[in-house]
């Protein structure tokens, strides 16, 4: 029984990465209508960015938590300005293909320069060690990841669903012409939103750098799972993807306890079931 508790807790921790990543994906899909297949590559860039800040500029973990998402976010905004914005109004497939191409380029370049086995990044001194919870040894860093990502998720949700800025943004996706008539610069807002979504991916990358190897393909294996999370949560639904992200972590934890081989596959079982029962995902709107 103790082992089960431990698996559920670890699941929750993994869930916070799913939540952060799928949140970014959902923001981008909801506001820009783009299926961002480059998300995994941008997550990887976040982790690499933290590594470079530390090893080239001597900037540690804490500033990197803010700086890396900004740097990668700016990179994302450049992508949006130069390429993605030409795809507005076209089918999803083109956005998917374009971002997939971008992901290949980014991953290929990183692989060429830094090799495939990756680079080391240590846990910051303040968060080293762990607490014995009785049923398991919880590294302090993992506890920090859960709390921090929960805060970021809720803040993002609040920003988009409850503030005036968010309201403008949602209005702009519904009817850009009308919103523009109110004197709001819609294209700039779209660009900033893409930057926000990308920044969230990079933030997840920085968070994962101390626990996973920082390597070029670290995001490639994750993207399809995160993608499934967004679909299960309902395409474009912010709250849906946050909840689904954490829930998937817990369900995976459960699977790892009962049938570990299937832990990477359970998300797809879930997706089939959800789509059959609720065609638009748990909280989504119609396609």
């Amino acid at each position, binding site marked *: 029984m*103790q*082992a089960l508790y*431990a*698996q559920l807790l*670890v*699941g929750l*921790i*993994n869930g916070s*990465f799913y939540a952060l990543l799928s949140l970014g994906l959902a923001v981008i899909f909801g506001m820009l209508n783009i299926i961002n297949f480059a998300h995994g590559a941008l997550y990887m860039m976040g982790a690499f960015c933290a590594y470079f800040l530390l090893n080239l500029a001597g900037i540690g973990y804490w500033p990197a938590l803010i700086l890396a998402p900004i740097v990668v976010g700016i990179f994302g905004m450049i992508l949006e300005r130069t390429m993605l914005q030409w795809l507005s109004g076209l089918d999803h497939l083109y956005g998917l293909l374009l971002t997939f191409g971008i992901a290949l380029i980014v991953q*290929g370049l990183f*692989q060429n320069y830094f*090799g*495939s*086995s*990756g*680079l*080391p990044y*240590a*846990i910051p001194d303040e968060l080293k060690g*762990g607490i014995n919870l009785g049923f*398991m*040894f919880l*590294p302090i*860093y*993992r506890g920090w990841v859960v709390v921090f990502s929960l805060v970021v998720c809720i803040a993002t949700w609040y920003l988009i669903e409850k503030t005036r800025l968010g309201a403008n943004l949602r209005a702009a996706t519904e009817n850009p012409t009308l919103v523009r008539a109110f004197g709001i610069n819609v294209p700039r807002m779209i660009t900033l939103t893409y930057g926000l979504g990308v920044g969230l991916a990079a933030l997840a990358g920085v968070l994962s750098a*101390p*626990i*996973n*190897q920082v*390597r070029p*393909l*670290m995001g490639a*294996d*994750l993207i399809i*799972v995160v993608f499934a999370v967004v679909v299960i949560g309902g395409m474009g639904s912010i709250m849906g993807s946050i909840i689904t992200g954490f829930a998937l972590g817990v369900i*995976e*934890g459960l699977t*790892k306890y009962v049938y*570990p*081989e*299937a*832990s*990477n*596959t359970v998300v797809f079982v879930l997706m089939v079931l959800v789509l059959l029962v609720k065609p638009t995902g748990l909280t989504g709107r119609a396609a």
Partner: protein
Amino acid sequence: MKNAISALLLGTALAFAAGSVAFAQDKNIKIGVLTDNSGLYSDLSGAGSTLAAQMAVEDSGMAAKGWKIDVISADHQNKPDIAVNIARQWVDVEKVDIFMDVVSSGVALAVNNLVKEKNSVMINAGAATSDLTNAQCSPNTIHWVYDTYMLANSTGQALVKAGGDTWYFLTADYAFGTALERDTTAVVVKAGAKVIGTVKHPINSPDLSSFLLQAQASKAKIIGMANAGGDTTNTIKQASEFGIVAGGQKLAGLLLFITDVHSLGLKVAQGLSFTETFYWDLNDGTRAFAKRFSVRMKSKAQPSMVQAGVYSGLLHYFKALEQLGGNPHDGAKVVAKMKEMPTDDPLFGQGSIRADGRKIHPAYLFEVKTPAESKGPWDYYKLIGTTPGDQAFRPLSESACPLVKK
């Protein structure tokens, strides 16, 4: 006009003469390095393997003796069907004589079949599967560097001897992981240890801590990692995070390369013990090679055992061709010659090639140094044990290879 015609006739006659000489004693060799340039294994093989092949050509001094050697390379993208297509085209169109490296087990087995069908040669340096010299052995293939049986044998025995009498396996859920677990289980059980559990994880798992927790809860003294690449490095990193090594359990890497240790850093990797058949800082011969190698690598990396194997394997191949006095373009014949001759090169020392295609050399058990012990970059290993070649690999008596006469 008359002069011109006679000159032409003379030229033709000369050309014919030259042609017939070339026919009698063909001194052309084409080497194909089929490797992973862009994926998981690109650090331990990849461009470094191609460089090692070029260095073997230069160091052999074959050009001075009138041989003409070309090296080409391609990326098999870890897909068996792409690999087979490239390989077939190399044999049919490019007239490649020998395949080098061929990392990744699935790809190696696929190319192994083709090489046999086309009567070409493969010296496999990169793949782990011991099937290449067992059930799937071929008169055209030599497995040069390591295999799952040897890794299990060397690491398993040494750790049991050092007191690791209870084991728990963390196994990547695919054929390679299962084979490694099976072979290691056989070895450690024979040595008197007990396997108290195993957990299979999907390959490329984003998180391995859940599986590590199960291993931790088992209280086994040794946690055997029957996985590879990113899964292994993440396991090691997260094991240190969850205080598993600090709690008294020991991690046993069943397949680790120096490039993995380099990417983990000594702080995380220290104390790990595992088996390789080559280390750049082993003796004067390996150091001299490594020095010349790393200067020419873009990343300044030291050679891995796979890359060293490409170099060593090619040197032996050249020696066999010299003995034959020319390139017969007959794979089975060349491999038979290579099996007859004892091997000797600065990287792997003296050894031999068995009837089943297994190259025999000692296996070394290394322990990763602590950051304090390390004197500089790439100074990572200390040697803690050596298994002689005749005991390291699967004995011929257990072999299922049809080439072995019983």
